[in-house]
Structures are given as structure tokens and as C-alpha cells.
């Protein structure tokens, strides 16, 4: 059946970068507007919502980066928050008024974004190079250890990191009069929101192009059958290392942005729960599908930071009676739903893996692969090859 939408759809399929830019523009306009309508305006004013969207953008960036590692290359990275921390602390060392190492250094935000990403990439390479020669399982445990160690080191090396207090007074981004804007300041979340959407758009285009390139196909090949991929002449170690490093780079980039938005970095922002949350976002969104992962990250972030809180006040508003079952006392109104979030993520991960491993918004190839229907996969690949 042909509709009038077919031609633009066909056009956008052929021009993916344009599609990404158009979607980003729509998001940029629609989200702040939606926040002013009920029921959303009941939860907070537009300014707060937009600030929340900017933070959600950080997690979208994190999830999209982790998707390359977990979704495309099939490597389990459990220490993703470590690279986030490295990016954030790099920013703090380059642009802070209370710098414990390079006092008085104020490198512009835009340069520090790249530096933060670069430093995280170097750490990614250092960690991945020895580990990725081994079986995939070892990467999971080494990254888990790394994710655990980085906050501990930051906490203990207090001469260089100021320990628990963290480094404060981080510089704000500055446009030097471009569009009449100088320093962003803390009062204006809109600028951060626009910035993060721009960063995400660039990252999206970059990753989408990469996914469709020779490298992207190599990732999928390594994920699906490492031995076969190696026999076809793919250098599996460099392929995996590249995916791992790109994940680390994205995480570092997100860290640098997050640090400048918050104005402070401290070790407790980068615990294992961050790595776990991002993993849940990738798995629930649909491993391997950038759009699904981004949507998953956004939804989970909003549930975590607005939904659960609102659920709490909603349940309290119902004035439910306290149910007593023998010694067990059930008082829904006293439940702090935020405490349950990680329990819910855990349940969601297990349920997802058992029932719908391809995620809520899967990529077609991943879905077929996870359901192990070889004929269908072959059919799909043949179909894809025939497309012009």
C-alpha cells in the first residue's frame, strides 16, 4: 500500500544524517513545549524540565556510546562509569577555579570536551588492549573492577582530587559573544539543552555512519561468530578494541559535558549504579539499535528522576488504608519508590533477557540473531544485499 508518506520516508532512508538532524530539531522544539502542558506542567515548571532534559541527554549520550560496545560488538562493559568519571575529572583539571593540580588553568569548554573524550579513549585503549585478547567474559570482570577502582582511587588520592569533597567551581561553557551569548551560567538550562542535543546529533551521525561502514560490519561479524570473522580476515582484537575505545570516548565526552553543567565533580557521582543504569538503558532500549537505545535512555532517565517521585506523591495522595497481614504491615504511602529503582532494573534486565532479549525497540538483525533462526537471518542478509 502506498501512502503520501512513502516518498519522504524513502528519501530519509537514503539520507540518514539528514533524518537525524531533522529528528534532533523536532526534539529540540517539541520537548520544551510538551513540558508546559498537563500533566507535565503539574510536576514542575518548564525551566526545571529542560534542565532535566539536558541531564537526560547526558545519559542518552552514554547509552549510545555503550551501545557500540555491548550492542554492536557484543562486549560486556560493566565499568562504563569509570570513563564517565575520567572525562569529568579531566574537565575539572582543565577548567576549574579550585584546581588541585593545574591551578589557574582555564581552557575553554569546547576544547576540553575533546580533551576529556581523548583522555577517556586512552584509558579505554590501555584497559582494553591486554583484556580483549582473551575471552569476552574477562572483559566484563576487568571493566567491573576498573569501574570499582576509579572512584576508590579518586577518593583516596585526595592530594590530587580533593577526595570526597570533589573539585568545585568548574567553568561554564562560553560562546564568546556568538549569538550574543557569553558564559552559559547556571541559571539557564536551555543553553545546556541545546548544546547536548547538538553533541548527541553529531555523535549519532558519526556512529550511524560507522555502523554502516566496513568497521560496523566487522563488529557485527565479531559479535555473531568470532572464529568465522577471524577466518574472513578480520583482525578481531583491533576491531573489538576500536569498539571499546569508541565507547570510552563517548563516555568521556559525556563526562566533560556533565561536569561543566553540574559545576562540581566528586567520586560518588560515578559509582557502579551509573554503569548499571546505562546498561539497563541499552538492554531495554534494544541492543544494536541507536534509536531504540536513545529512546530507552530518555524514558528510563525520566522515570528515574520524575516518574518514581511522582508515583510516590500520587500514591500518598490516594490515602490508601494500611493493610495488616499478621505481622506484615503494608503501607503503600510510606514506600519510597526511588529505593526500588535498582530492584526494578534488575528484574527488567532478567525478564528482558529471558523473554525479549532484543529489547523494546530492536534492530531487525539483532532480533533474528537472538532468536537463533538461521534461515531467517540468511534471508534477511540476502535481502539486505539486494537493496541498492
Amino acid at each position: 500500500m502506498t501512502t503520501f508518506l512513502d516518498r519522504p520516508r524513502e528519501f530519509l532512508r537514503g539520507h540518514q544524517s539528514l533524518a537525524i538532524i531533522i529528528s534532533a530539531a523536532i526534539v529540540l522544539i517539541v520537548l520544551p513545549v510538551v513540558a508546559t502542558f498537563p500533566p507535565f506542567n503539574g510536576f514542575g515548571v518548564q525551566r526545571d524540565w529542560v534542565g532535566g532534559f539536558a541531564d537526560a541527554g547526558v545519559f542518552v549520550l552514554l547509552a549510545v556510546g555503550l551501545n557500540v560496545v555491548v550492542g554492536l560488538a557484543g562486549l560486556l562493559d560493566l565499568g562504563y562509569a569509570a570513563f564517565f568519571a575520567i572525562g569529568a575529572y579531566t574537565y575539572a583539571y582543565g577548567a576549574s577555579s579550585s584546581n588541585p593540580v593545574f591551578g589557574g588553568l582555564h581552557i575553554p569548554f569546547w576544547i576540553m570536551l575533546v580533551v576529556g573524550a581523548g583522555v577517556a579513549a586512552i584509558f579505554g585503549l590501555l584497559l582494553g588492549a591486554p583484556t580483549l585478547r582473551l575471552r569476552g567474559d574477562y572483559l566484563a570482570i576487568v571493566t567491573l573492577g576498573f569501574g570499582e577502582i576509579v572512584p576508590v582511587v579518586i577518593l583516596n588520592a585526595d592530594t590530587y582530587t580533593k577526595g570526597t569533597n570533589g573539585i568545585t567551581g568548574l567553568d561554564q561553557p562560553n560562546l564568546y559573544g556568538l549569538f550574543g551569548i557569553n558564559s552559559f551560567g547556571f541559571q539557564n538550562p536551555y543553553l545546556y539543552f541545546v548544546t547536548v542535543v547538538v553533541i548527541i546529533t553529531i555523535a549519532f551521525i558519526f556512529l550511524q555512519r560507522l555502523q554502516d561502514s566496513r568497521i560496523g560490519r566487522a563488529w557485527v561479524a565479531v559479535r555473531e561468530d568470532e572464529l568465522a570473522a577471524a577466518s574472513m580476515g578480520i583482525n578481531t582484537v583491533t576491531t573489538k578494541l576500536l569498539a571499546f575505545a569508541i565507547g570510552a570516548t563517548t563516555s568521556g565526552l559525556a563526562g566533560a559535558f556533565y561536569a561543566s553543567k553540574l559545576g562540581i565533580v566528586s567520586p560518588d557521582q560515578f559509582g557502579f549504579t551509573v554503569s548499571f543504569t546505562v546498561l539497563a538503558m541499552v538492554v531495554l532500549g534494544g541492543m544494536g539499535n541507536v534509536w531504540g537505545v536513545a529512546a530507552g535512555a530518555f524514558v528510563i532517565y525520566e522515570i528515574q528522576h520524575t516518574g518514581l517521585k511522582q508515583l510516590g506523591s500520587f500514591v500518598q495522595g490516594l490515602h490508601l488504608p494500611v493493610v495488616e497481614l499478621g505481622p506484615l504491615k503494608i503501607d503503600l504511602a510510606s514506600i519510597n519508590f526511588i529505593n526500588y529503582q535498582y530492584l526494578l532494573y534488575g528484574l527488567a534486565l532478567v525478564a528482558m533477557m529471558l523473554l525479549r532479549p532484543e529489547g523494546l525497540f530492536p534492530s531487525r538483525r539483532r532480533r533474528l540473531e537472538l532468536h537463533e533462526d538461521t534461515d531467517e537471518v540468511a534471508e534477511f542478509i540476502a535481502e539486505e544485499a539486494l537493496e541498492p
Partner: protein
Amino acid sequence: MTAATSPITKLRLPGTRWRAPLGIFIALVLSYLVIANGAGAQAQEQFINALTIGALYALIALGYTMVYGIIELINFAHGEIFMCGSFVAWGMITTFGFTGAITDLGVLAVVLVAVFLVSMFVMGIVGVIIERFAYRRLRNAPRLAPLITAIGVSFILQNLVFVGISNSIVTVPKLIPFTALSIGPVEIREINLFVIVLAVALMIALQLFITRTRLGTAMRSTAMDREAAQLMGVDINRTIAITFFIGSALAGAAGVVQTQYLGNTNFQVGFQAGLKSFTAAVLGGIGNTTGAAIGGFVIGFLEVISSVYGYGRWSEAVVFSALVLVLIFRPTGILGQQLADRA
């Protein structure tokens, strides 16, 4: 054969009978000297301390290595099973109404046996349930799926305790009197002696079970080649369930040890202990039970040595560096490869 497929094996090799005991003895003497150099007068106490902590890690590491040996899965939930075991011990001891050390030896023995048996049994069952509902269906799925499930199960257990029992540290009464025994020139606290003897006894029992019984043989053959074992009439599902039961029961025992040795527990202890014990398992050669036990003690010594030299806060970094170094230079672990080849 790579370490990954190395089955659960026994240590005793023809012709090399004395090599392992000799190596262990030399390693112990060396670590004693290193500790003595840093701790001075407290050398003996710290040495025993290292052995005790090592025994704790070894008990947990055994579960990791057994599960990895048989289904090649890093069971991230294993550390949380240890944590839950400590909460079972806490629950029992506070329910019985004990608040301090028990001086009557008979009562002490009965209570300890009861606490250990219940904790081991409960955690064993929990392990079997986890295997049955979370891992079994994914046995032939792509590798990523069971790993993600395992990390999910770990979060479920941790947060069930967090929201259901306690969100902070709980103090557990230490049942064993805090007195020291003198054995010749050696002075050792009863609790340390108890932990070390218990751990060694459990390890020997496990070793005998694996090498001398039909079920143990079934476990080893399943680890070696699941399909071939099945063709030989081994009930794969039952064997894997038993492996989970034993591994989890050992972690349950380690949980009780945690409460009795340190006197407290919290919902987060499983994470770090799990990480360290997994390092121990890799250090010893994953899939190899003897290696896991030795690896546990190595980690215990590493931790005590780093704290003796004033780097206690860095013990995790030391252990993690050890893990990365082992993976770079000897990914099959201390014992891994040699034993696997001759299994």
C-alpha cells in the same frame, strides 16, 4: 586446551607429588617474612589474619570457579549469595536471642552447626532456584545474554536486602569467645583457628566429593564436554543444579564466617568480596578448584600485606592490579593450564 574449557581437576599428579606442597610452603614463608618486615611485633597476628581472610575468599572463589568450570558463566550473583548468607546468619542469631559470645562449649557447638547448616542449605537452594529460572533457559543463547542476566540477578538480590531488610550496616553478635589459644609458640584466637580449620575441612570435603564420588565424576565430565557426558548417561540438568547448590552453599558458609569474624554485614559486602574472590578464581586458573582455594589465600595475603605497609585504603587497587597483571602475563592462572592438560 585453554583455561576456559579446563574442567574441575585434582591437584595430585604423578611425579610431581611434592612440588605443590613445597611451593605452598615456600610461598608461606616468604609472605611471613614480608609481613614481619612491615608489621614487626604483630607479624604473627597479621599472618593469621591473612590466612583467615584468605580462607573466606577461597570459600567464595570455589563457587565462582565451579560454576564457570561447568557452564562457562561468570556468576555475578555469587557475591550476593555470600551476602545473603551473612544475613541468614544474622537473622538466625538475633532470632535465637544471642547477644554476645557463648561460653558453654556444647551450646556454642550446637548453635554454630545449626547456623552453618541452615545458611548453607538456604543459600544452596537459592543458587539452584537462580540457575533454574534465570540461567537454564539461556544455556545455549549468545554469551552476552546470561552475563546480563547474572548482573541483573545480582542487583535483584542486593536490592531485595536493601529494601526488605536493612539499608545500612547491621551488627551481628560474635558467638565465639574472643580468647587466644597457645599452641606451642603460636598464639591464635579461637575464631581464626575455627575459620581456617572449617574452610580447609570444607575444601578437602569438596575435593573428595569431586574426585571420589559418582556425582563428582559427573560434574567433571559435564565440565569437560557437556554433550559427550549426556551421551554417557549423565543427567546434565541435575549435575549443573548440584554444582550450583554446592557452590552457593560454600558461599553461604562464607557469609556466616563474615558475620562471625568481622561482627557485621551490609547489603553491599557481596559486591567487593565477589570481585576479589573472582580475582582469586582467575588467579588460580578458572575452572580449577584447587587453584581457586590457593588464589583465595593469595588475595588474603595481598590484602593484609598492603594494609601492613600502610596502604590499607588501596587494597582494592592492589587486588585489581593483580587481576590485570595475571590476565596479561598468565591468563590461565597459577595452576590452570598444567592441570587441564593432564586431566
